[in-house]
């Protein structure tokens, strides 16, 4: 008689599960090959050096997501315009009524503010992360320079996953918002402007199924 279910042999090759005392390798064929670097928006199976604060010793990071690089274009263009704006003072001598020293200070202040703006925007993009492990989802929000927020939920508590891709830019660049509803304390997780939303949703659904099967079979990792 053919096997009706054989998920225990079709899981991630990097992990192991224990079933009735025997240890067997896990193979997750729905996870794409390792890709991405520290500045990528879509990092699959990052190297082992990358860890997060509350990570368990055996917990494995499968995906790290942040907003698509195209979302940075708007502030980058603004910064570029602001960078060249003082050059216009040559044609519009607005500061000529000020002493020379004050004119110089004005330019210094201008570039310091610009530097702060660029650095804050970069940090905000860089540290707004969603980490998907084999056990849970961790949402790291860097709201501004003085506020951070970290929330997580177990994958088995996920109830509903949906995504929205709207507008020309999101369609062309293939990114969108993913909404995950859970039965945990924080009931909603929104991954904003993440690349390949379809693939991410598929991975989450497969992980959820995997966790449900593990629970039903009473397996432990």
């Amino acid at each position, binding site marked *: 008689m053919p096997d009706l279910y054989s998920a225990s042999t079709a899981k991630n090759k990097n992990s192991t599960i224990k079933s009735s005392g025997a240890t067997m390798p896990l193979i997750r064929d729905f996870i794409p090959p390792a890709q991405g670097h*520290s500045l990528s928006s879509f990092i699959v199976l990052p190297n082992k050096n990358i860890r997060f*604060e509350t990570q368990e010793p055996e917990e494995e990071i499968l995906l790290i997501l942040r907003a698509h690089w195209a979302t940075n274009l708007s502030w980058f263009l603004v910064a570029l315009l602001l960078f060249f704006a003082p050059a216009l003072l040559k044609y519009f001598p607005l500061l000529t009524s000020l002493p020379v*020293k004050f004119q110089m200070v004005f330019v210094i202040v201008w570039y310091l503010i610009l530097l702060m703006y660029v650095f*804050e925007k970069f940090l905000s993009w860089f540290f707004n992360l969603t*980490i998907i492990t084999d056990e849970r989802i961790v949402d790291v929000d*860097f709201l501004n320079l*003085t506020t951070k927020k970290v929330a997580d939920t177990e994958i088995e508590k996920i109830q509903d996953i949906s995504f929205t891709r709207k507008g020309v830019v999101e369609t062309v660049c293939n990114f969108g918002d993913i909404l995950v509803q859970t039965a945990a304390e924080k009931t909603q997780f929104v991954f904003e402007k993440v690349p390949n939303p379809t693939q991410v949703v598929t991975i989450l659904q497969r992980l959820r199924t995997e966790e449900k099967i593990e629970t039903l079979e009473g397996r432990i990792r």
Partner: protein
Amino acid sequence: MDQFVFSLLNINFWAIIKAFVLLGFLVYAIFAFVVVRQVKLMTEVVNGMMTVALRFVSWLFFLFSVIVFIFVLLFF
């Protein structure tokens, strides 16, 4: 009363502006230090992603703001 009005009229307008500018630079330097702390905390939340580079840049940013403050204080 006349003396008070006279002393008020004698205040150098540019000296007041300079004091405000210096205050602004000081606030900026404090803010840059907050950035250093925040970067340190964030790199502890997620470790291994450009940790050294980001901490280095944040310290560089803070040192730069302090140098600018001292420069303005001495030569402005």
